[in-house]
């Protein structure tokens, strides 16, 4: 593909590279683009990335592993879209995704990306683990398979396979159970939601996943879906309708907030606990959901809810989006966004860093260990605070 067939060819040159996209809402740092925060070279800023894409499409530069790494290091966190002053800001992430699609179409991908996509194609998850083990997370807890209950609890790949995220999945399941919610899971029949597959530019695989999921949901009579992950929430809510997949989709925090309001769940006292909340990008910037998690936190009597310097639409991404929780292009450094984020949480005075995304949970907990802050601050999914 050349620039002439690139779908953003009429727009991509309009990036001035002014750098607004590096900042959070309060302008406190140039490090709110997670890839730029990690590498601090202009090529990793959003503007640098857009200029490189245009140069690649114009044949000014050739494809290289480094170019691919620069493109795939973007987590699609949408901070750039939030801060760019231009009216084309809504298309910025898609300009990057479309260039990744071109790399997919040319078969020119970095190895971790290939592995991610191949594993999803072969196993339905990025970890390359058998689908039979998909419901191992329940670990003896009596969670029913979905058979026409009111809700499908879609656990997702991290919740199913990552040992830390599994704990969050169990906590959510227990909460739903305790509130008397009728729900079931897909177990070994669950496959990737495809959100990160699409962000990585693999349109064909994404469409295949969407088709399979929608077909399965319909065959089972699913009407209402509760997701563990904001990534799944985003794609089910915003993308699946375009494939004739209209479902009532809620992130689990939205369900819990309502259950608290109805008195079906009673948050325990957390007297004196200082808690800060890390906004997941696919709940916050992608879907504008900032208040629900905070309302849940405020329901814990005695808890002191603290905001980090960068929060809500100005939050720093954990660095896990667009498959980076697996491909790890942003890892391996004290300047990795997850480590910067936990330092910020620690500086806020919080002793609990609450999250509402299994990807953030894993990324940030590992970062706490890397920062040797295990004794100072704990990373917990919001659902885990109830137990």
């Amino acid at each position: 593909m050349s620039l002439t067939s690139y779908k953003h060819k009429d727009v991509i040159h309009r990036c001035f590279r002014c750098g607004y996209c590096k900042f959070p809402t309060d302008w406190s740092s140039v490090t709110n683009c997670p890839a730029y925060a990690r590498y601090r070279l202009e090529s990793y800023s959003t503007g640098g990335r857009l200029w490189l894409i245009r140069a690649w499409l114009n044949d000014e530069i050739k494809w290289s592993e480094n170019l691919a790494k620069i493109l795939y290091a973007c987590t699609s966190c949408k901070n750039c879209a939030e801060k760019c002053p231009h009216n084309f800001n809504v298309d910025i992430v898609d300009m990057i995704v479309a260039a990744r699609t071109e790399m997919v179409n040319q078969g020119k991908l970095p190895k971790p990306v290939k592995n991610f996509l191949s594993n999803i194609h072969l196993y339905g998850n990025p970890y390359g683990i058998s689908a039979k083990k998909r419901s191992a997370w329940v670990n003896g807890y009596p969670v029913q398979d979905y058979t026409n209950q009111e809700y499908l609890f879609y656990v997702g790949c991290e919740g199913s396979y990552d040992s830390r995220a599994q704990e969050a999945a169990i906590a959510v399941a227990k909460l739903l159970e305790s509130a008397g919610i009728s729900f079931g899971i897909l177990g070994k029949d669950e496959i990737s939601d495809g959100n990160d597959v699409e962000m990585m530019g693999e349109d064909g695989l994404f469409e295949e996943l969407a088709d399979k999921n929608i077909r399965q949901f319909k065959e089972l009579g699913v009407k209402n879906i509760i997701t563990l992950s904001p990534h799944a929430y985003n794609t089910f809510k915003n993308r699946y309708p375009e494939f004739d997949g209209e479902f009532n989709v809620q992130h689990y925090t939205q369900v819990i907030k309502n259950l608290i309001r109805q008195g079906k769940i009673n948050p325990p006292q957390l007297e004196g606990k200082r808690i800060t909340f890390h906004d997941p990008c696919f709940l916050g910037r992608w879907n504008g959901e900032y208040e629900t998690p905070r309302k849940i936190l405020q329901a814990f009597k005695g808890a002191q809810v603290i905001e980090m310097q960068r929060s809500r639409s100005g939050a720093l991404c954990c660095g896990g989006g667009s498959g980076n929780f697996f491909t790890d292009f942003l890892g391996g450094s004290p300047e990795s966004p997850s480590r910067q984020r936990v330092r910020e949480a620690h500086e806020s005075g919080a002793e609990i860093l609450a999250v509402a995304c299994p990807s953030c949970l894993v990324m940030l907990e590992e970062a706490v260990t890397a920062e040797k802050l295990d004794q100072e601050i704990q990373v917990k999914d919001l659902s885990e605070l109830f137990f």
Partner: protein
Amino acid sequence: MNAVYNALIDIVGEDYTSNREEELFTYSKDLGTSPPQRPEYVAAPKNTAQLQEIVRLANREKVAIVPLGGGMTLAGLALPLKGGIIIDLKRMEQIIEVNEKGRYMVVEAGISQGKITSYLKKNHPGLMHSEPGAPPAATVGGNLAIHGQGDLAHPNGFNTDMVNGLEVVLPTGEIILLGSCAVDSGWYTMHPLPNMDLFMGWNGTTGIITKVSLRLFPNKKIREMDLFTVEDENLVPEILYEISHLGLTGDLIATSSELPPMMNRLHSITTMVTGDTAEEIEFKRHMLFDVTLSKYIREGTGGISGVSQDRPRPMVSKSSDWKKGGGFEYVGAIVPVEFYPECYRRGAEISERHDIPYTVLGRVIGSSHGMMFSWSYAFNRADDDTVRHAREALHETDEMVMEMKGTIWKPAVFGQQLMMEQMDKTTREMMKKIKTMLDPNGIMNPGNWEVR
């Protein structure tokens, strides 16, 4: 792999060094019309010690070095005209000290203007620094290297007039301190030591500024922008003079632009009114409009076009999209305020010749001691013809400035040469001697301010 690249990795680490195509491409371009200039290496030091090591390496290897801040000059001043190492200074961004009562702060020079504003707002709300009209990613060091101005230019002068001390890495790698910090007495004044400032306004050709003590100024609780509009450009200088004489308002700017059409050929004078109470604001507004500017209102030659307007963060990059093309560049000139009408008229003519909607702006510096007047030319980055037109318009404007007896601000190399051709010979020779003395190997941002 080669010796320089390996040495850079040893100094700043592999993550912050590159000789890869993608980084060389990225750093070969700035945001304006300048043709690309390719570096051989990019390095991003974290601190002065690492920077010193890079400078020493460059001297040993006789490799050019080009310090880069936010890269916002638009005039190609941080492009590697003779190859070498681009030194991206933005990792050097620590806030070292804020002295509230002494009204200064010490920062590393790679810090962004946005970070300073945000930090002061949160931690010292009664203080502010002079933030330039550039995007917030512009750095303090870069701004001083080009004699930038900011929103405190009226009545306080250039940002380089608001410095209490400097740390600079010399072209040969030593560190020099300027001001009271040089005698270990803190960072509170540049005076009364002999003036040895050979670094501000030199585009990084005589040294790399690494630490800065910035003067801070009272930040009042209420800030509003008030606007007064006239049709006759000849009235602008006297109005600016009178507002400046009033001495009750801050940032003072006159603008005119072809777009939007309703503003075409009008001249909008904006000034900042600040106060700690509503009464203070009301008094200043009264003095501004009911006393100082009342005669224009009575005559019908001017009118109030906005009161109590919010002052948004400068959105200068929006200028880049007027042609939906992602590019603009401007010539800035330091001129007497009385030049405003001629600057406007001749600038509009140049714009018309090149089919570019005119946009001009004059910011008063000091108490009407001068004005930074800018002529902006938008272009479409995807259309070479518009880039060429903009570049020609810029060159014509440079020539016009010199004809008018103005002084080009942060000139691109073309403008630098025009200035040096017209420069007093002894002064020009002194520039050369200073550069040769400080930079014997000619490694510092070569091609800039180069006396031929």
